[in-house]
């Protein structure tokens, strides 16, 4: 209810702002954008309609995200739990961590060409980095009391790892997965900057070439809505799977 009021009043402000200032030369009003957005579901933008563009982008994001997450979880848990693994991979990881995916574009083109490979690589990085970080902190923050209990009751190292460390890390891993998903979806624009003929990112990139602000706002809307839905789905999954831990925040 409040959400509707809030969004509608934002749109009205936008409409007034555009209508009564010089910016209307370059900036379309909200109604035009919404009309164009709805229209994009029926009439193609570029080669495809909006749902297809979203599908293409998701086909780039989802596989790379999954691979990146799996790598991140495995490496993160191992780094958090086994000190030698940590000391081996930590320096290399710390070097890669602060470099934004978008800075990898040139080098990923040189390495993987301008096809899907380089796009997957960028999204892989966007997922891998935060998931690893959260998995590390998950495995590191296991309550020592629980481990001591396990040891006292005669659990083997393997057993402690499997039934104390792993379950304890799950909420942390999930917050990493959440951040990673948002990051991967955000990176799709950068990835589709490489060269593409379809995808939500392409809508924005190509609008830059044609100076079509309406189209780029339509693309922004598409990205925003899909990103919002992805985050919501992920949160629902987390609530289901980690029902035993109610994390604050």
């Amino acid at each position, binding site marked *: 209810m*409040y*959400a509707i*009021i*809030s*969004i509608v*009043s*934002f749109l009205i402000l936008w409409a007034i702002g555009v209508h009564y200032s010089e*910016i209307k030369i*370059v*900036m379309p009003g909200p109604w035009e954008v919404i009309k164009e957005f709805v229209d994009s579901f029926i009439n193609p933008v570029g080669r495809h309609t909006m749902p297809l563009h979203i599908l293409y982008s998701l086909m780039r994001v989802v596989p790379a995200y999954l691979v990146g997450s799996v790598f991140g979880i495995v490496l993160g848990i191992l780094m958090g739990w086994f000190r*030698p693994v940590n*000391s*081996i*991979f*930590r*320096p*290399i990881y*710390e*070097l*890669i*961590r*602060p*470099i*934004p995916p*978008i*800075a*990898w*574009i*040139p*080098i990923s*083109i*040189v*390495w993987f060409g301008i096809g899907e490979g380089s796009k997957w690589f960028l999204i892989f990085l966007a997922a891998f980095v935060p998931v690893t970080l959260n998995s590390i902190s998950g495995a590191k923050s296991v309550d020592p009391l629980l481990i001591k209990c396990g040891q006292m009751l005669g659990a083997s190292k393997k057993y402690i790892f499997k039934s104390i460390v792993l379950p304890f890390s799950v909420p942390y891993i999930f917050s990493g997965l959440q951040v990673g998903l*948002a990051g991967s*979806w*955000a*990176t799709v*624009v*950068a990835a589709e*900057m490489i060269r593409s003929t379809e995808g939500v*990112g392409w809508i*924005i990139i190509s*609008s*830059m070439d044609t*100076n079509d*602000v309406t189209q*780029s*706002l339509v*693309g*922004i809307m598409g*990205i*925003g*809505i*899909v*990103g*919002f839905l*992805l*985050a919501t789905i992920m949160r629902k999954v987390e609530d289901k799977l980690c029902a035993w831990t109610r994390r*604050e*925040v």
Partner: protein
Amino acid sequence: MLLSLVSVMAFIGIWYFFTAVLKVVPSNTLPDPVKVFTSFIKKFYTENPDGATLLEHTAASLQVALTGYFYALVIGIPLGIMMAWNKYVDRFVRPLFDLLKPIPGVAWIPLMIVIFGLGIASKAAVVFFSAVVPCVLNSYTGIKQTRDVHIWVARTFGATNPQKLFTIAIPTALPHILTGVRVALGAAWVAIVAAELLGATRGLGFMIQQSRGIYRTDIIIVGMLAIGICGGILTTILTFIANALLKGRR
């Protein structure tokens, strides 16, 4: 510590072995580490091939990043605090915020060019959009974690609403807010590469972009390293400041 050292050595060693000794890949695909290192040093005093030295690029990037970052702090932190403190503000702003949050900074580029032109303003705006999100989120969480008991005590002693906010809620939230400030700096620094894709003539992102055009992979890697190192330094400085501010509060 020793293992870390060995690991880095091994990493560089393998890199060197495959590129310089075996020559598995051509050097313009992946240059060997020695070449990257010499390019890194050379870039400090030569302007080739992109018209500025490494320090000039870094300074240009810093200027853009810090401008956007500053606005993100000034707008983001009060907004987050207001959202957490006043439920009407929350109800009103949250839906909009949730919708704008998943939109990456890069996506704003075309719009920002149209509105702000090609100067520093449009780049700073892109940085702003990336940096403002963590500011708002962390300030919000921080304020929300104020203990009810503290608020009740204040109410019992007849504190006014602003008093409750400024003497209880904000000090409680300070560690969280400072975390947000730190995360936002990271985000701002990351966003400059995106921001400099739009008509820059200076800056680390620009340098990478230019080197890509002329196939100088070594300079690309130098640029990436420089971004990584600067990001690391900035975060360390902020962590240091945050720890000084929070002394005795933990």
